[in-house]
């Protein structure tokens, strides 16, 4: 009889997540992913003015506030078929991209690196050797030996002072930790540098969004930023130049540090390219609109079936029927009435709680499908879709990352390795490099457009009598996010959010097929059932925006061990 491991949540940020695994013979045999909180935001929105929905929906999630604001206004604009001025698209694009770059850097260095990096081992590193290694890989100016010596000293003081306990997610000395001390020290140095760098991305969001967290500048029909090149109180030359300065600093870090660190970690954990593929139907929506109607995008998206890039079918516009008709949500294993999959416009939210039933209903999350199939969303889907679409910048950075891994691992590592736990981290870094370049492009487009004398940022919405419906999508850092709204006489009649974590963390669907988390955890090795770091590695590779505490129950003697984890 195997052991049952339960990973249960402790925050209510975006909704609780619980993961259950059956472990036998040092491997996960079967997994269940369960959303433990009913996120019925639509109940708050019913009857409200659709122009207010973005301000409310951005409170759904504490980690990705801007994404819900953007998606909500897009949904209402789609219902009205309202065009958005070019300046507003560019300003939104800058916010979207700066947020994405911020999110990816913070996810790797501050929220998931400690799954792979043993901070205590870094104390055994030779700082000069660390510096030599780093300088052989990158021209980044923060890799010098004096820097590495200083970081080691600081870390030593921190550990000696007993302060390491403030990290709630450390697995120091776990047998699955494989990095040499020098690589661990390098990661700690870059952890600290990333703390400083991520602020630059946040500053871009605050300058344009007027406030962060919770941007204030979006509106149905555009943005509320006033543009005037000769004024200090509006978006003028001074602020635009400040933004450009931050973009350049971010680009340096992402290309010369993040992309290389991920490749280095990947090379030392090459065995993790064999685990965690899970659901290999990949869905990504296009984003970074380049026109007022949403028919041209800088970032392509679409659908890949069963990891075959040749099967790629693009999603082309904000109105694309291929997208709009493909999405359904099943409730057979969810705590809602009924079991038939429904389209989000027809979505029902009638709770039917049954307790956790392994073969029945076990989650508050619905199970989204694309043409009846479960689909993975997120950076890996995004990167694979961009590659399939022939996106040149993505090819460039994906090739660079795989070449670095191959050189360090001394064996040829190809694209197939991306369908894995470590592949999701690599894809996130590749996506980040593509997006940081796109940030510079969008800045230039905005400056050029203002230079032509266009200062329009808003088209006023007018709501017709009767019923209309619309959907807005956004390729958020964690993947495809969509809001679906039905508006009746200018008031919200139905509102459904299909969020990335629902696509990935969903329970089994109508046909009992497991969702991406569930499928990806199966077959993961478990070195120490009391500290199931390996399960966390795979779940964290999706960047779930929740924190978890793990309760491991040993079914034989009934003892429970709690290990906190993030």
């Amino acid at each position, binding site marked *: 009889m195997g052991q049952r491991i339960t990973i249960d949540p402790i925050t*209510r940020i975006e909704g609780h997540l619980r993961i259950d695994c059956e472990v036998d013979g040092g491997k996960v045999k079967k997994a269940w992913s369960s959303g433990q909180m009913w996120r019925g935001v639509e109940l708050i929105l019913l009857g409200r003015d659709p122009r207010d929905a973005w301000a409310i929906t951005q*409170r759904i999630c504490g980690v990705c506030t801007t994404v819900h604001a953007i998606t909500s206004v897009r949904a209402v604009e789609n219902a009205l078929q309202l065009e958005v001025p070019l300046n507003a698209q560019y300003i939104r694009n800058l916010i979207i991209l700066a947020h994405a770059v911020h999110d990816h850097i*913070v996810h790797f260095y501050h929220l998931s690196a400690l799954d792979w990096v043993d901070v205590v081992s870094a104390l055994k590193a030779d700082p000069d050797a660390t510096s030599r290694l780093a300088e052989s890989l990158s021209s980044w100016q923060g890799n010098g030996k004096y820097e590495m010596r200083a970081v080691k000293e600081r870390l030593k003081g921190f550990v000696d002072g007993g302060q390491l306990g403030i*990290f709630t997610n450390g697995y120091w000395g776990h047998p699955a930790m494989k990095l040499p001390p020098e690589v661990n020290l390098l990661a700690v140095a870059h952890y600290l540098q990333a703390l400083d760098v991520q602020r630059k991305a*946040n500053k871009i969001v605050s300058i344009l969004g007027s406030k962060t967290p919770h941007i204030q500048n979006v509106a149905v029909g555009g943005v509320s930023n006033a543009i005037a090149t000769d004024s200090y109180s509006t978006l003028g030359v001074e602020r635009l130049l400040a933004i450009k300065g931050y973009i350049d600093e971010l680009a340096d870090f992402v290309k010369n540090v993040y992309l290389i660190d991920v490749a280095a970690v990947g090379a030392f954990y090459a065995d993790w390219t064999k685990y965690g593929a899970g659901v290999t139907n990949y869905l990504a929506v296009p984003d970074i609109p380049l026109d007022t109607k949403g028919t041209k995008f800088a970032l392509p998206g679409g659908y890949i079936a069963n990891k075959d890039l040749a099967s790629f079918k693009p999603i082309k516009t904000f109105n694309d029927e291929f997208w709009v008709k493909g999405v359904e949500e099943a409730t057979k294993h969810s705590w809602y009435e009924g079991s038939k999959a429904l389209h989000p416009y027809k979505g029902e939210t009638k709770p039917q709680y049954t307790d956790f039933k392994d073969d029945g209903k076990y989650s508050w999350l619905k199970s989204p499908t694309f043409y009846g199939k479960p689909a993975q969303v997120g950076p890996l889907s995004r990167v694979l879709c961009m590659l399939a679409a022939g996106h040149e910048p993505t090819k460039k950075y994906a090739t660079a990352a795989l070449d670095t891994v191959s050189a360090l691992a001394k064996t040829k590592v190809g694209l197939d390795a991306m369908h894995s736990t470590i592949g999701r981290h690599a894809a996130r870094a590749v996506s980040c490099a593509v997006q940081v370049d796109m940030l510079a492009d969008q800045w230039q487009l905005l400056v050029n457009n203002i230079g032509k004398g266009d200062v329009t940022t808003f088209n006023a919405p007018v709501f017709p009598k009767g019923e209309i419906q619309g959907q807005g999508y956004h390729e958020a850092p964690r993947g495809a996010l969509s809001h679906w709204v039905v508006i009746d006489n200018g008031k919200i009649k139905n509102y459904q959010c299909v969020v990335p974590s629902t696509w990935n963390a969903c329970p089994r669907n109508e046909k009992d097929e497991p969702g991406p988390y569930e499928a990806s955890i199966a077959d993961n090795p478990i070195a120490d059932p009391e500290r199931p770091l390996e399960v966390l590695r795979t779940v964290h590779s999706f960047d779930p925006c929740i924190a978890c505490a793990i309760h491991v129950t040993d079914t034989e003697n009934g003892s429970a061990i709690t290990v906190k984890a*993030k």
Partner: protein
Amino acid sequence: MRTVILGIGNTILSDEGVGVHAAEALRAAYDLPEGVDVIDGGTAGMELLDPLAGVDLLVVLDAVKAKRAPGTVILLTGKEVPVFFRSKLSPHQVSICDVLASLEFAGDPPKDLVLIGCEPLSLELGTELTPTVAEKVPEMVAAAVGQLAARGIVLEPVGRASARQQRSLSA
């Protein structure tokens, strides 16, 4: 000297958002002198690293589950605060705890910390506070203003400073 008054909480889960409501009430009632910021932190985590880096005094307003009667206002200062967050009594301890840990590691932690919490009655969906908790918002605001005053930072109610300025101009 930089002071941040940080309201945290989820404003669509009724009393969960009391910290944000209290921060907004303080902002509406007082003129903020140079160097004092009020931040609506929502449920944000790492996004708060930048605004919280290197502050001299951080006053956190939050909903806290301390097994007291709903509406009970509690006050913790200095070293008690991180310990409190670590023992998982606040619904937001993970993100704010991680932010404080990262700032500590980066050598940029708040020099002085105060937590003013209120025990929630309801965490159901809703944008309004329950009356039990809503009536405690002034007490939380007064506690925050008192903590600042004890450190020599005096906040003037809105209008008073400008009225005095008016008088001196007309004199």
